[in-house]
Structure formats: structure tokens, C-alpha cells
């Protein structure tokens, strides 16, 4: 545990994505329109190009999964890449060079979750109080998030059941995806994969929810590799011990005009749905708790 006082506002490490320039961000919402293709090179500037990335773990020697078989891992990886595509999965994402589930290693997040109890300390709750990932070079370097917090009995009871349930669901999901794709889902065409995911709503829901977690959670859980998920949404991520300066809190970063596309208009045109989503989130019924587990509590019935 760290003893140092918390610095007021040390300079952030240069690797932290800083506030984005309006010129780059004005086009952010404006996808799906052909004329934008001409903006390609400008949009790409400043973002990590996938082709220039040194070997990431999934490109080097195949990483062993802890829970999935190689085939299961390949299917879930392919499904996650359709749900949250990256540059190799969708032309629009290529245009933005925006990392997706494959680049962020989402399948390893899911595999780690399903194998959480195979670690000395179950990988359920990452540690604290901070990671220091944004303060390399400033004093204390240690990443306290790496050291997971052992679950107490009430948590272990729940998580053993949740994970056992999810393990079964994932085994079954792979079989269903393969069947719907008429063979090996991971080798099917992108449109066949999309059709299978459209058809299998419950399977999609589960993988999508976990992919969102693996994309945007702190990297200690096994996903969000090199904070690729955060970069894809222009968010700096965990900010302790730096936090934000008063000026960063109080002032606008400048104009950033949203260009409305049909997708954005569809959402903005149905604010009832937005309000409902916010409510369900506040009821804590999205994400982890969205997945219903049989045997919740004990029952005399």
C-alpha cells in the first residue's frame, strides 16, 4: 500500500490520450456517409495504426486460454469482433482505425472471467487504490490494481454460481453459433456471422454485455489491452492519482459539433428509450446483473 501523499496535479504521462483536438473530433459522429472517406488520413492521424503495432499477444504465438478450448476461443473472439468491430472487421472502423474487440483482447477478458477461480486470488475484483498507468516516471510506480482483492464469503458464494452458470452458457453459445453458421462460426463469412448473431438474441446479449466490459474495464481484468478500448472512445480512463485540474473540470475543450447520422437521429428521436436505458442502469439491472442466474438465493419452494 502506498504511503506517499497524493500529488496535486503532476503532469500526465505523454502516453495518456490528452484532450482531443476539435479538428479530429468534429467528424467523430459522422460515420456511415460516403463523402467521409476522403477524411480518412486526417482521422487516422494520432491513433495507433494496427499494422504498425508490434506483435500483440494474439498475433504472436497463440495464447493459451484458461477456460476456452482453442475452437471456443476462436468463436467467441469472432463473435465479439462482429459486436465491437475493429479495423479488420469493418470498413468504417478501418477508416477511423478504431480498435475493436479483437485489438482490445476482449476474448481474454471473457476467458479470464470464466476462469476467475483458477487464479490464486480469484480475478473478480481488481485492487486499489490506483494503477499509476498515467504517472509513469512520477514517484511511486506500482500498479496496485494488479493485486486482486480476495472475495469475502458472500461474494465467493455468488461468483462461483455466476461463473458456473456462465461457463455452461458459453459452452452452449459456441455450439449454437456454430450450428447457426452451418459449421465453424469462426470461419464463416462476416454476413453469415452477423445473421447468426441476429438470430441468437440471448447468446448475443451475453457476449455483447461481456464484450462491453472487456472493452472498457481497467486492463487488469484481461481486456482493454493497451487501453485500446478507452482510446476508441476518447476517454483517458482511470485518472487517479492525477485527477483533473480545475480548468479541465470547469471549461469546455472547445467546439465539437456532432454531425447527425441516421443512427444518431434514431436514438435522439426516441428519447423514451434513452430514459428507459438510464433507468434500468440505475436499477443496476444492466451489465453484470443483467445475466440471470438460476438458483439465485435459496428457496424452500
Amino acid at each position, binding site marked *: 500500500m502506498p504511503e506517499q501523499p497524493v500529488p496535486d496535479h503532476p503532469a500526465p504521462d505523454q502516453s495518456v490520450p490528452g484532450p482531443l483536438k476539435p479538428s479530429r473530433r468534429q467528424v467523430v459522429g459522422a460515420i*456511415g456517409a460516403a463523402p467521409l472517406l476522403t477524411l480518412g488520413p486526417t482521422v487516422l492521424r494520432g491513433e495507433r495504426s494496427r499494422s504498425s503495432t508490434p506483435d500483440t499477444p494474439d498475433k504472436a504465438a497463440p495464447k493459451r486460454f484458461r477456460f476456452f478450448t482453442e475452437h471456443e476461443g476462436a468463436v467467441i473472439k469472432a463473435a465479439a469482433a462482429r459486436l465491437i468491430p475493429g479495423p479488420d472487421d*469493418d470498413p468504417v472502423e478501418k477508416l477511423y482505425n478504431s480498435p475493436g474487440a479483437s485489438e482490445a483482447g476482449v476474448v481474454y477478458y471473457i476467458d479470464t472471467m470464466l476462469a476467475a477461480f483458477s487464479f490464486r486470488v480469484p480475478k473478480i475484483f481488481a485492487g486499489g487504490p490506483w494503477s499509476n498507468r498515467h504517472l509513469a516516471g512520477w514517484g511511486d510506480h506500482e500498479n496496485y490494481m494488479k493485486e486482486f482483492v480476495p472475495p469475502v464469503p458472500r461474494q465467493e458464494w455468488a*461468483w462461483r454460481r*455466476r461463473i458456473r452458470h456462465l461457463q455452461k452458457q458459453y459452452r452452449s453459445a459456441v455450439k449454437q453459433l456454430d450450428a447457426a453458421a452451418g459449421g465453424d462460426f469462426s470461419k464463416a463469412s462476416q454476413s453469415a456471422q452477423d445473421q447468426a448473431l441476429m438470430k441468437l438474441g440471448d447468446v448475443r446479449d451475453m457476449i455483447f454485455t461481456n464484450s462491453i466490459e472487456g472493452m472498457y474495464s481497467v486492463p487488469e481484468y484481461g481486456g482493454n489491452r493497451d487501453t485500446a478500448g478507452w482510446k476508441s472512445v476518447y476517454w483517458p480512463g482511470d485518472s487517479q492519482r492525477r485527477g483533473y485540474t480545475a480548468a479541465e473540470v470547469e471549461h469546455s*475543450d472547445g467546439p465539437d459539433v456532432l454531425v447527425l447520422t441516421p443512427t444518431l437521429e434514431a436514438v435522439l428521436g426516441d428519447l423514451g428509450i434513452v430514459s428507459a436505458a438510464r433507468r434500468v442502469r*440505475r*436499477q443496476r439491472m444492466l451489465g453484470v446483473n443483467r445475466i440471470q442466474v438460476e438458483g439465485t438465493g435459496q428457496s424452500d419452494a
Partner: protein
Amino acid sequence: MRERAIVIGSGAGASVTSMVLAHNGWEVVVFEKGPHYIQGWEKPGPIKTVFSNDELKFDRNFDQPDPISEPRTFQAKQGGDLIVGVVNPLASVVGGGTTHWDAKVPRFWDVDFSKKSMLGDFPGADIEDWPFDYDEIAPYYERIERLMGAQGDQAAIPDVVLEHAPGKRGFVMPPGPQQLSSTTIAKGCRAIGLHPYPFPMAINSRHHLGRPACNDCGQCSDYGCPIGARIGALAIMQHAHQTGHVEIHADTMVDRVIHDGKRATGVRYIDRRGKRHTMDAKVVVMSCSAIETSRLALLSNLPNPHDRIGRDMMFHNFMDGFGIFTAQRMHAYRGRSITMCCEDFADPDYVGARAFAKLNGIPYFRGGIMEIGGSEDVIGEGTELQFILDALGSAPGIKPFGTTFKTLMRASLLRDRLAGIDFIGEDLPYPTNRVQLDPKVKDFRGVPVPRLTYSQGKHEHIASLFYIPLITALLKAAGADAIGAALPESVVNSLTGANIPHGAHVMGGMRMGKDPRTSVTDGTGRVHGMDNVFVADGSVFPSSGAQNPTNTILATALRNATKNFGHGADHLGRDHEEAA
């Protein structure tokens, strides 16, 4: 030789009661069913903690009961469809809900304490005055605000608030930086004649008692504070601990108050290995938060001759308004989770409110305080978009995943471009809204779980109808590029299925009152008919108020504990302490 007092729970009410007990010669044993995540709170100085900027951890119920091992059940009305799972959980860790709250400390108003005298009855609701009025509780508020280390600006408190909640606040430091999202919505409030002001909150805006100033990391509400700029009720528990006569047992659940119908002799508890034990005590204080205290009272078969235990549960009439800004990002992810509030709508005489009530055949209604400027975090935005795309799935040309999803994440309508309004309206006490023991479902320890029956009434419905257009208007006035809306509960309910109350403002069930036929505890929180069993949390509230309840939980517990256990802690939280 000190006699033993047992305090069940370790949150707001428990901290104050423990402090007063320990300073009046009691040996205090605190039982907390949740784990212990903060070290070093026992004395002034920095803390150590495993709380962090980790959204997933809190999604994974790190500090809240997991609905698999500790579910609750819910039905909208007696005999209705039963839902088993997440029902308005509060953090259950050492420090209780105040470990992960956003630390807002507004006060209730005179009309809350003197509800029946000032506003009168309401058909179907149990309207009563509290055992004390605003003037009596005001000095306790001030001490609590000092003990908590509140930030705020006395000079900025608007007249409408001072008219109903007069007097000096115990602010020990000025407000910190104002979030852009909050000040932007505040402009909209002013444009329609409202009076927003810096939200009083128990977060350090400067170094205080050895703990650092908040650095506006932004992962505040629903997270534990990683740096100890906000330690909540543990700042008060510290004063208990410093007597050397308090011990805290974490991961330990009390499932019975042992008594003979007149006096309690101790409690039965379940340790972290699942073994049951008993401990004797001369005094037992229940401060487990409103639902859990009602549950424990029912589990313990405390005297309940008029079937009042667990009734009149209140949750606040939460309404959601939001503005989406299309010309700039609002970055509400920076800062201390909403820095402005606006209380005009808590006024029963807000212009037009009386006439609208009359038109709808009710005597009056109240809205409540608005927290202005919040938004979502990143996993939150992702899961909400998943929900939205599912719902829009039938729209032509919209694939409910893939680049559609990423486009929306990049545009960040719900996180980076959103500035929200949490409208915290008064929720009247209806006797049909209640906590009972579920006859079938048990938690992982084998203890029956609480079953909540709850529906909003006409008061909340009419208040929503009246205030929704005003919220929408102020959101639009907040910026030409904003798309603002607030929607009636009925619409949101039809889209979400169930109206399980949310928001972690949990009150009622053990209400205070003179008459045992209409209340469970007396004017000091002592259970009617019991010599030595006391309640110190939001369950004793006879009305919900129209503001965040924790300051009032703390002040009420301080007043009641002082009356019940003595004046030995009266020196704490006084004005002269500030220099220390």
C-alpha cells in the same frame, strides 16, 4: 467497568450513535455484515484502501450485496408478479452507504418536519409531524456538517432555501471546482427563474484533518474514494474509535435481536464462516438502513401489535431529465459527481403548484431538490447503448451491434455529451408500501430476505406531470444545441417493465411517533414497548423529505442518541473545533 452496547450496521446512523455511546461510558461493539475496505480512518491522516477508479468492480457488486447471494424480492402490489434480484441495494461495507455516495449534504426543510401542521393530510398517506421541528434539529445539522467536513458557500444559499431551512451551515471549507455540465444546466435553471447554488457536500475541497483535497478524478458517486478525500461516516466513527471503546466486526451479520418482549439481552450473529454465536448487551441499536432494519425487526419478532413494522417505506420520486449537447462535449466524467443543486421545486408553493394540485383534486404536492449535471461512465454508456439498440432493433437499417454501436460510443451521446438532472421528489408514506419477510427466498446464509411491495401514489404522479415540462424547458434553456427531455414515470415504466424504486434513498419502516398505533419507534427512535432497543437510520423518518437524506439521518441520530445516552459527545462538531 463499561457496559456493552451493540450497534448493528456501520454507516451513517451507526457512526453517530457509536460516537455518542462511546463518549458516554459505553463499550461499543459494531457488527457490519459487509467487508472492510478502508484502513487508517481511525485517526486523522491519510487512509489506505482498495477502492479505485474501476467501474467494473462496482458493477460486479464489490461493495453491494450481490443479488445472487443476497437477493431481495419485489412486487408492485400485494399478490403481484414477484421479481427476485436487485432491489435498491445500498453499499454494505464498513462505512455503509457513505463509502460510495456522492456525499451531498443538503438539509430537509421545515415543511418536512412539520408536515401535518404546515401542509395537512393527504388521502391514503400517513402524514404526521416528526417528533421535533426544524428549529430543534438545526444545531445538530450544523455539528454534523462540521464533523463530516462539509464544503459549501453559505452566502450562495438562495432565499427560498433559507426561508425553509434557515441558519448557519457547518461548512468548514469552500466549494471546489464547478463542473461544466453543472454550470451549463444551472444557466438553464436561471433562465426559467430558478436558483441553483453550489451543492453542499462532505468532500474535501482542501486538505483537512490529514486527508487530501479531492482531485476531481470523476469516478465518485457509486465508487469508493481512492484517496480519502471523502470517507463519509467514518469521519464520525473516528471520534467513537478514539475513545478506545469501540470494536468493529466486519463480514458478520446479526440475524436476531434476543429479547423477552420488553428488554433485549443481546444479539445472535453469523460469523464469516457461517457459524452462529450470541453476544450479550445492555443496549441494542439497529442501524442497518431502512429495508434491512425492518427485516431484522421482523426476523427478531420485535413487538408489533399494530402491524406497523416495515410500513410507510419511502424511496423518493426520482425523475430523470437530460440534455444532450451536440456542439461541444460536457465531460461530466471530470469532477465530483455533480457540483450544483437547485431546490426551488421542493417548495409546495412553487408558482402554479397549488393551482395544479387543486385542478387534479389533491391538497398539495411537492417536487424536490435537483442534482444538476451528471452523466454516465463508459461501461454504463456501453450497456445502455446495448439496451437501446435492442429496443431499436426493429428500425429499418439499424443493426443492433457492430459499427452502429461504435458510432454511438464515439459520439458519446450518453456520457460525454450528456448533462443530466436527477429530480429527487418527495415520496409520501403510504402504509401499503412496505417491507415483509419473503416467505420463500433466503439469502446465502439461510436468512429470509426482505420482500418489498411498492407503488407510487397520486402525489408522486401529479408532481411528475407538473414538473416534467419545467425540467424539459430548463434543459432547452441551458443551451441552444441541447436536446432536452424528461419523461413521465408511466412512459418509462411501460418501456422497462417494472418500477422497482432505485436511487439508494431508503426511508421509513420503523417510523418515529408518539402513538404506537401509527408508529414503531418513539420520539427518540426507541422501539415502542422495548426498554433498550433503538433505531438509528432512515427507517425512523415519518416523511421522506425532498432532499438527499443522509445529512438528516446523521442529524436525527445525533439528536436521538444525545437524548437517549447523554451529553458526553456534545463538545464534538462545535464551532471552536474548526481551528484544530
